[in-house]
């Protein structure tokens, strides 16, 4: 029968022995072997503890406490050693870690600059309360011309070189037919914009036979020129920058009266006509102004075409060229690039979000 002192001594020596063995261990495998030898079911600690019941009942509680303390001390040593080894092994595994190597970047897509500008413009007008409408690109002569106060033989038809499908069908030359289609379908008050492709029989440095327009119109009682001017000023300041100035020049469109062309102060030279190095600005040809859209108060003839009473209703309409705006906004100097779809061009428009 072992005495309490003997048991106590062997328990204490366990700690020292275990420490020595762990010191020697260089792998988790060896640590595990040590654990089994000391802390396993048939290990040394279990062997010592199996002798406890033989002790004098008076000594038993003290010995039991000591045994438990030793056990937790052994476990602590074991975990510490494991941690040391694991850290060591991880750093061996991770020697190739290099955060400067490229990651698996998913492909980066892009929207065509025309789409970006269309979306920017539509967002501005939707914010002002306009709906978005669309319509056919192959259009009847009626919607493209006649209903817009451009009867056959009207000299203003020469303002737009038309691509015909048949004698009475055209590729729409502007998005203005959407004024008619929308007014026919709905009743005032209404406010809408119509983005889309339009076509002209014209191809040179500054014209492509297909391009994009956005038509906007608002019809209500007592709509005035001030509403039109305010709307377009707000638009120009939001799409370009808040400091941009706009200028209304009287002009002529058969479907508006009064009509105006709208110029903005040149975004390249800030309206100075000369760029920073003093040379002539080629964008505005030194005038300080660039034309961006045509607009006016809807002509009473147009209202009659859709059965609105021109004494009761007034309205405004405008049409702007998307490519023109995109060229000014992004500083693109060649219209034809829009339809060549060179990746080196498209890649310049990957940045998300709008100004």
């Amino acid at each position, binding site marked *: 029968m072992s005495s309490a002192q003997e048991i106590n001594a062997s328990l204490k020596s366990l700690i020292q022995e275990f420490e020595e063995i762990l010191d020697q261990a260089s792998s988790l495998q060896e640590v595990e072997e040590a654990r089994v030898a000391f802390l396993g079911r048939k290990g040394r600690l279990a062997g010592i503890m199996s002798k406890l019941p033989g002790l004098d009942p008076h000594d038993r509680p003290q010995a039991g406490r000591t045994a438990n303390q030793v056990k937790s001390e052994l476990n602590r040593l074991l975990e510490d050693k494991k941690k040391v080894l694991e850290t060591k092994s991880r750093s061996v595994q991770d020697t190739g870690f290099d955060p400067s190597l*490229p*990651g*698996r970047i998913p*492909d*980066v*897509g*892009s*929207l*065509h600059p025309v*789409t970006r500008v269309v979306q920017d413009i539509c967002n501005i007008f939707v914010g002002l309360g*306009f*709906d*978005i409408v669309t319509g*056919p*690109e*192959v*259009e009847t002569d009626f919607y493209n011309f006649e209903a817009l106060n451009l009867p056959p*033989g*009207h*000299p203003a038809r*020469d*303002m737009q070189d038309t*691509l015909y*499908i048949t004698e009475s*069908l055209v*590729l729409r030359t502007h998005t203005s037919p959407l004024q008619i289609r929308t007014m026919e379908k*709905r009743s005032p*008050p*209404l*406010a809408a914009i119509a983005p889309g*492709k339009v076509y002209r*029989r014209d191809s040179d440095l500054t014209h492509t*036979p297909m391009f994009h327009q956005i038509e906007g119109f*608002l019809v*209500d009682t007592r709509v*005035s*020129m*001030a*509403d039109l*001017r*305010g*709307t377009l*000023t*707000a638009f120009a300041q939001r799409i370009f920058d808040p400091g941009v100035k706009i*200028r209304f*020049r*009287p002009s*002529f469109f058969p479907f508006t*009266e009064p009509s*105006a062309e709208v110029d903005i102060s040149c975004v390249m030279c800030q309206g100075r006509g000369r760029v920073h190095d003093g040379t002539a600005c080629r964008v505005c040809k030194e005038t300080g102004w660039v034309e961006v859209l045509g607009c006016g108060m809807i*002509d*009473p003839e147009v209202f009659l075409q859709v059965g609105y009473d021109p004494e009761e209703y*007034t309205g405004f309409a405008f049409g702007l060229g998307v490519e023109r705006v995109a060229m000014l906004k992004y500083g693109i100097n060649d219209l034809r690039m829009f*339809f*060549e*779809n*060179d*990746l080196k061009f*498209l*890649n310049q428009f990957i940045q998300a979000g709008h100004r």
Partner: protein
Amino acid sequence: MLLSLSWLREFVPYDGQVDELAHRLTMVGLEVEEIVRPFSHLSSLVVGRVMEKKPHPEADNLSLCTVDVGGSECLSIVCGAPNVARGQHVAVALEGAELPGGQVIRRTRIRGEDSQGMICSEAELELGQDAAWIMVLENDSEPGASLIRALNLEEYVLNIGVTPNRPDCLSVFGLAREVSAIFGLPLQKPSLNLQEDGFTDFSSEVQVVIDDPAGCPLYQARLISGCTVKPSPGWMRYRLLAAGVRPINNIVDVTNYIMLELGHPLHAFDRRLLEGAKIRVARAEEGYRFTPLDNQERGLNARDLLIWDENKPIALAGVMGGANTEINNESTEVLLECAVFDPLSIRQTARRLGLHSESSFRFERGVDQLGAPFSLDRAAQLMGELGSGRVARGVARSEPRPYSPVQVMFRRSRANSLLALDVDREYCSRLFSSLGCQVGEEEGDGFKVTVPSYRPDLSREVDLIEEIGRIYGLDRTPEHLPRVQKSLHQEEQNQEYEFCSRIKAWAAGLGLQEVINYSFVGMADLDLLGLPQEGRVRVFNPLSEDQDVMRLHLIPGLLYALRQNLGKGNTRLRLFETARSFKEDKNLETGVRENNRLALLLYGSRYRMHWPYTEADADFYDLKGLVEHLLQVFADDPGKFAEHNEHPYLNPCASCSIQGRHLGFLGRVRREIAVTCKARKDIWFADLDLDALHVVFSSVQPRFQPLPRYPVVKRDMTLAAPLNLGYASVLEIVHSARVPILEDAALVDIYYPQDRQEKKLTLRLTYRHPERTLQDREVDAEQQRLADLLQKKLPVGFP
């Protein structure tokens, strides 16, 4: 319209800056596109005085001249013109000067004699046609002075874009009226001091008969006899040149001069080439042939209006005179026409014949009928003066449709509300008067306005309101944001734009790049793709053969983009386009079905070509993956894909459908087509119907399902199948078994044994019971039932 500033100043005393004038004209709707100095190309020339002239010792036809050009020493210049003479003032190009033709003058030796410059002819200076003789100047200019100053050619010309509604501004005097109104300056009418001559009245000599009063409301003619045809004097030629009109002779030049000055086109006939004593205005007949002044015979139809003498047509009314009665160097008797023609008729003829002249341009827009007699008289007077002729007494004329004045009611309240202004009666009345209108007595808050005959664009109240805005300055009117009102019960909203925007965002988000291509392609492109002839929408007047038909499918544009990029060394493409296809459909209003479509194109490497990606080219499953992703995102539906063997340009090819709607096709572009794009690798392409997808998209609404509370049991099942057995048929059987606790079946592996006699498919089946934890044995039973069913229905085994 080219407006010469000095000409303008004959009628209105504007003495401000040319830039200010240009700005103000622009701001009243007469856009000055350019300010040019038409004779600036002559700025390096000087006046010289021929001090001495000797024959050239080595050449009979050359002279040696000593010319004073204002310097300390005279120049010696060799001259070949026969008219050079001592004492003449001449135009000299000094060494280094550049002539309009681009020739730079150098000091040279001509047959052994020094020549230190050049004495110029009018042709060399592009001031006239005379090339053989030198130009001789008036003797009052100082040697050495600038030539253009000496000739009074230091001129500004404004190039004005006149809108089609303003025919009155297609003349110097018309623009003077505007300038007078803008600046409040007095207007001076061109002078008229016509001296008629002779005893017999010309109106009794020639009778005017108008068969078509609607086509010709007024025809009038005068006779100028005893004329001498010769070049016009310099002042007139220079004015015409500055206005972009080529001088011809004193008779024709007067017609052009008056047209430019007063806006009314005129025509001069050689009276002696006219037969009989009658001028008739009547339509042509179908198939009639006529040769105008340009000497190109043209076929006419019954809608073309002609001027006839007793026997033959002599002019295409308002468009161009006939070659048969043209003024020539021997003409002495001139019949001068000043008429009014129906704009529409002139326009139709000019357009159909492709014969656009300064004359037809003005008649198409409308000329001033009340002003016509003045134009005729002023032209006759000038022609008499310049041609040393006599203007015969009287005018041969017929006016079946006299001009009737137009009166328009104007309400100030209406103008103020439309323009957001507050202008008073006095202001409006003064403004209209300055524009040549007559203002009537006050009626209500407005008055009646009688508009001038030269303003056909003012026929309604709103036209007058525009004048208020135009002259007041649209740019000075107030501005504010509108209060946008909508009907409470909104009509059906158009969602096409919004849906396409979502699709674009999806595609860009997946790393695809958007392209935009023309909607038209060439017939040959469609033929190459093997697309059917029927249904194509052809462009009637295309710009070129490769743009003569609308896109039936989107593919030609994307192949074009691919070809362009390959040519520029971009060898990896992931493109998308949303655009419409066009197909004939007689049942629709426009006869064309426009279908929004989405095209996807993958070419080259699947991944970016850098570490840690591995190199491999995109394949069918990359493309299909995109399409499946689209269907999941927009329809929450995996869609159905089936092999399709008859596609015109895709092979292999799969059709894609969703909820019973056909969406389109995806596959590899056939090799013979791919090579036309210089593509060395496979082109993977999909073309899908966005309108159909939109319908499904609109019908899908997420519905919340309670989250499952019990765990799943996953079991794998490997089956050996023949190589040609489609995976879809396996899935179909699994689903047809209707195992209620089967939540999902997914393919996790395909293994092809070395002998490649069969393939091994491993499915992962997921089971779950909504209300309790599943027992192993019930899952075993269902798994077995599925296996049995598969074995019964399909040629599969379980290894």
